[in-house]
């Protein structure tokens, strides 16, 4: 299957699962991270029940990402904003419920347990990350990426795929940073921006953040390009997808290329 087809298929599947009339009407449609679809697809595409594995792992990710958007303090007096916050809490809970339901129907009790342990490990790490101050961007990024890639890593370990996980994690970080770079350039807010500018003394403005992300992207691209370690066939699939033509990966777009050529 082509990269675009994979992304479209799982985007559509997830949106079918989370379809709920009132949530659709009142809160923004959640964003499914396309690079995670591709990473999960690479890991499980040859397994029995691969569709259930990919969808349930993405639902857990979506649930946790959704809950991250809840404001620390409830300070809005507008009924519309209050309702939006209330429904965002419930949307995250609903996505978690769907993940459990999907795997329970497939009788995949062990995989339910694996993802449950990913959730509590992630929440523990988040509770530290979100309330700590880091002096350097790289330090914060190291803690952040551990949280951000935890579910994909959990799936890899569950399937006993270990060779080349460092490649996969750098690949995931690169694509996350590409998205964040694009958001900064387009002056759109993100949770990552808020976290870095509040918790990292090296990055207090969006201009500084843009600069740090830019440097890190260049560094990661070079690192991935020169990667010469042995990798499992699953990670090799991901690597080939990356090497074929980065432009094929939807999220690497011309805007980024412009930004990098400055």
């Amino acid at each position, binding site marked *: 299957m082509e990269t675009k087809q994979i992304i479209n298929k799982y985007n559509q599947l997830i949106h079918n699962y989370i379809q*709920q009339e*009132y*949530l659709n009407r009142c809160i923004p449609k959640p964003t499914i991270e396309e690079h995670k679809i591709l990473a999960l697809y690479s890991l499980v595409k040859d397994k029995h029940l691969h569709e259930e594995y990919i969808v349930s792992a993405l639902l857990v990710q979506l*649930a*946790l990402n959704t*809950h*991250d958007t*809840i*404001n*620390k*303090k*409830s300070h809005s*007096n*507008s*009924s519309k904003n*209050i*309702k939006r*916050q*209330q*429904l965002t*809490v*419930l949307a*995250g*809970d*609903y996505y*978690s*419920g*769907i993940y*459990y*339901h999907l795997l*329970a*129907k497939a*009788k995949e*009790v*062990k995989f*339910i*347990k694996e993802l*449950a*342990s990913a*959730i*509590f490990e992630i*929440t*523990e*790490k*988040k*509770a*530290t990350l*979100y*309330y700590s101050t880091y002096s350097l961007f790289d330090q914060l990024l190291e803690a952040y990426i551990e949280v951000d890639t935890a579910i994909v890593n959990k799936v890899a370990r569950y399937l006993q795929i270990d060779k080349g996980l460092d490649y996969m994690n750098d690949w995931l970080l690169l694509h996350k940073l590409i998205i964040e770079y694009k958001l900064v350039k387009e002056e759109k807010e993100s949770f990552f921006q808020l976290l870095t500018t509040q918790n990292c003394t090296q990055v207090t403005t969006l201009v500084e953040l843009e600069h740090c992300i830019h440097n890190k992207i260049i560094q990661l691209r070079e690192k991935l390009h020169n990667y010469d370690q042995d990798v499992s066939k699953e990670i090799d699939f991901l690597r080939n997808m990356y090497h074929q033509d980065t432009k094929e990966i939807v999220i690497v777009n011309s805007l980024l290329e412009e930004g990098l050529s400055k």
Partner: protein
Amino acid sequence: MKLAKTFAYIKKDLIEMESVLEDTIKSENDTLHHASLQLLKAGGKRLRPIFVLLASMFGETDKQQIKKVASALELIHMASLVHDDVIDDSNVRRGAPTVKANWDNQIAMLTGDYIFAKALDQFTDIDEPRAHQLLAKTMMELTLGEIEQIKDKYNVDQHLRLYLRRIRRKTALLISSSCQIGAIVSNTTADVERTLFKYGYYIGMSYQIIDDILDFTGTEKELGKPAGSDLIQGNVTLPVLYAMEDVEFKQQLKIVFEQRDSLSKQSYYPIIEYIKQSNAIDRARDLSDAYLKKAYNSLGNLPDNKAKKALEEIANYIGKRKI
């Protein structure tokens, strides 16, 4: 734990389950650990674990497994409460500060997710797909019930069926599932399992109706929040539905709801007072009693044992409860 005094023979199991709960929520992160522990120590009736334990006594009980199931169901209930406090912006629960009040919304969200995941981790030690399918479906319904509650807020054009469907999802299903899962895990007969599910459902419906009555009749000290709080939050519960049969009252409530952004809480006081003085409370209690009667009657199908007696006592307790 008050209920446990009425049937001493499961008291030991409940105490042991408390320590399972405490062990399960232990976290390497201090904040999550303290937030979860605070929630646990705030107490609660432990109704769901009690139902699991009692239901399991109609089959072949593996005590270790049952304690895991019982504690997992209590943890799922706790996780939903900590998120509910963010939804309702509540600073007090059971007379104590909520997690969101002691820390903030983000910690409350993380705590809820953490407890939920710990519950699932615990529950997946039970390799019984049917129990997982039932609990998963229940959890989805529970959330849908809460979404419906938000959708129906401040809407005076509601009917009884909508209210009953909402409380079925929001409260009754987790209680009926606790009974049924207790039965599934202890391999009871299909008839016993069905009876326990029905009993739990009727008890759960009655329980929520009484909760909705107490919101008007309880004191601030008893409730841990001001009387009428649900109405002030826009929730149209059974007493309000009955009171709205008076068209003048319904019109008055509609106006207050429409102007809610510019009104103080005091504006609701005459409305709350009207509901308390009307026959709406008695009628709501009659419906709760009808559910309790159904719960009693359903028990007739079960073999006579101590657990059956205890289930009858719980129905009694629920009918008379003040908090």
